[in-house]
């Protein structure tokens, strides 16, 4: 191959900048692929709730807006293909919504739909008391079995790559492992074999680096204050060669920075054993990685090593776990932190007195060091501080009661209580996270093509 494949990322999570994709393509119309990630550990449980209310929901509707925003590029002849996990719990629904937008604009396209990740029925139907134990705690599935909301296997790149090879312009997936979106594009582009583990490892690292969008271009960097253009951080691009070497960069004219430092920071983000990074496509070692700057905002990465993937898929399940709420008040004046803590205790005491002792509660005097309570010396000489109280309980009415106990402090608390403009905090459902494993041969990733 004489040139690298160009892969951009324009969404790091559900709620990221909706105009990032169009802006990225405007500055880099030569991109071969755009990847958009929408799913975090418990995003699918939120989609499950939305689908309960509306059977046609259950996916990241933001993506449909992204497709709409890209129509002018495609209609002008641009060929950038898009791979996303926006399908969530309802990839068909997501693809149909995209198709409707394209039809309305008279645009023809081919949409690949990757499913098979939803294994909720398998978890519900299991009679094996040893199956699907919590990967972290070892607890049996029976503990949460009757409260399960979602269960999705992290699929690999296979079916998405197949969709691209069959000519899909857009690939809408359910739960693909985040880096697999990138692996799918590179392996389809170069025609890599699934057993080409070093190359898959390189693409997995590339995907890992760009899947959180601006986190590799200066976002949340230790050196963030040194950046210019923080208001317009560029979304990342990788230029990946057939041998697995790649360069991380960002469009000219955008803010932020791609440096050895930002790339190393993001490489380590949410990393476990760096010698054994598990993905459904490949087991990756980053121990021999070489990272060096080869130009302004250009960082070359080489040396990824891969071996066969694990024989199991990781499954991310969620279960209902009661309710929670959190509220804040601002306390101004001498000894603000002590007064804030006393206010927090009063809230819990009043709940107890009303028979609503919460199962769990947490009081923080933010500003005094409580965000990492007990790690750094506590600062109690504050003149202003934010009280944050959070409670969780299986009873909705208990948490409802809590949400009404902060406002009275505006008249019953210490002098200098303020900042109660946002009203009662909302009661939210809690979804517990239940990671577990499932043998690869029990999951069947599927692909369908929808011609628009």
């Amino acid at each position: 191959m004489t040139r690298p494949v160009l892969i951009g990322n324009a969404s790091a999570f559900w709620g990221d900048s909706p105009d990032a994709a169009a802006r990225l393509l405007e500055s880099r119309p030569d991109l071969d692929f755009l990847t958009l990630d929408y799913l975090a550990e418990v995003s699918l449980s939120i989609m499950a709730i939305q689908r309960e209310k509306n059977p046609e929901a259950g996916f990241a509707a933001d993506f449909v807006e992204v497709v709409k925003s890209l129509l002018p590029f495609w209609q002008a002849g641009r060929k950038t293909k898009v791979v996303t996990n926006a399908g969530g719990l309802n990839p068909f629904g997501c693809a149909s919504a995209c198709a409707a937008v394209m039809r309305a604009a008279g645009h023809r396209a081919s949409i690949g739909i990757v499913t098979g990740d939803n294994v909720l029925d398998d978890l519900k139907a299991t009679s094996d008391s040893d199956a699907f134990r919590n990967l972290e705690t070892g607890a049996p599935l029976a503990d949460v079995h009757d409260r399960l909301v979602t269960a999705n296997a992290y699929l690999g790149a296979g079916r998405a790559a197949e969709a691209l090879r069959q000519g899909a312009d857009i690939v809408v997936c359910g739960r693909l492992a985040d880096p697999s979106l990138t692996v799918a594009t590179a392996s389809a582009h170069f025609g890599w074999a699934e057993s080409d583990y070093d190359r898959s490892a390189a693409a997995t690292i590339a995907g890992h680096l760009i899947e959180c969008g601006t986190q590799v271009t200066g976002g949340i960097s230790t050196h963030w204050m040194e950046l210019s253009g923080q208001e317009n951080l560029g979304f990342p691009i990788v230029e990946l060669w057939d041998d697995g070497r790649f360069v991380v960069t960002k469009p000219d004219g955008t803010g932020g920075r791609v440096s050895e430092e930002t790339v190393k920071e993001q490489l380590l983000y949410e990393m476990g054993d760096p010698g054994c990074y598990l993905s459904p496509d490949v087991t990756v070692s980053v121990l021999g990685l070489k990272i060096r700057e080869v130009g302004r905002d250009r960082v070359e990465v080489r040396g990824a090593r891969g071996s066969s993937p694990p024989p199991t898929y990781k499954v991310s399940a969620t279960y209902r776990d009661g309710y929670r709420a959190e509220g804040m008040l601002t306390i101004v004046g001498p000894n603000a932190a002590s007064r804030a803590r006393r206010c927090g205790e009063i809230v819990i005491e009043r709940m107890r007195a009303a028979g609503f002792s919460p199962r769990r509660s947490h009081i923080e005097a933010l500003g005094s060091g409580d965000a990492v309570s007990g790690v750094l010396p506590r600062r109690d000489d504050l003149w202003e501080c934010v009280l944050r109280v959070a409670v969780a309980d299986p009873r909705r009415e208990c948490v409802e009661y809590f949400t009404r106990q902060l406002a009275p402090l505006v008249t019953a608390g210490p002098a200098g209580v303020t900042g109660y403009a946002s009203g009662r905090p909302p009661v939210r459902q809690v979804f517990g996270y239940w990671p577990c494993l499932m043998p690869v041969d029990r999951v069947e990733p599927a692909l369908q093509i929808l011609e628009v």
Partner: protein
Amino acid sequence: MEGATKRARLRDIAYARSGDKGSSSNIGLIAYTPEGYRYLRDSLTSDVVQSYFRALGPVHVDRYEIPGLLAFNFLLKGVLGEGGSRSLRVDAQGKALGVALLEMELEMPVQLHDRCVRKREL
């Protein structure tokens, strides 16, 4: 000879990023210089990190070394207690643990400190 020492902070010689993995959190820590990496390899053991964060109750801390990148990965098992979605802390996802680690106080030989600090800006 390196007789005189000075009080420093970890952030003088390294930078970091943290996040969540279920009920655990990981902190990627990267030294600015090879000297700084070697100093941390010898002094910043998993026990030191576990003790530093003991108030948050990590069950166990694993330290992984990536010498080629002058980096360490600390995996703080169980430090998020209830896990990202259930934790009641404002920092439910361990995003603040990296900057908190960088506040660690060090007592370093003056000349060594000079060789470990960051040499340039972004």
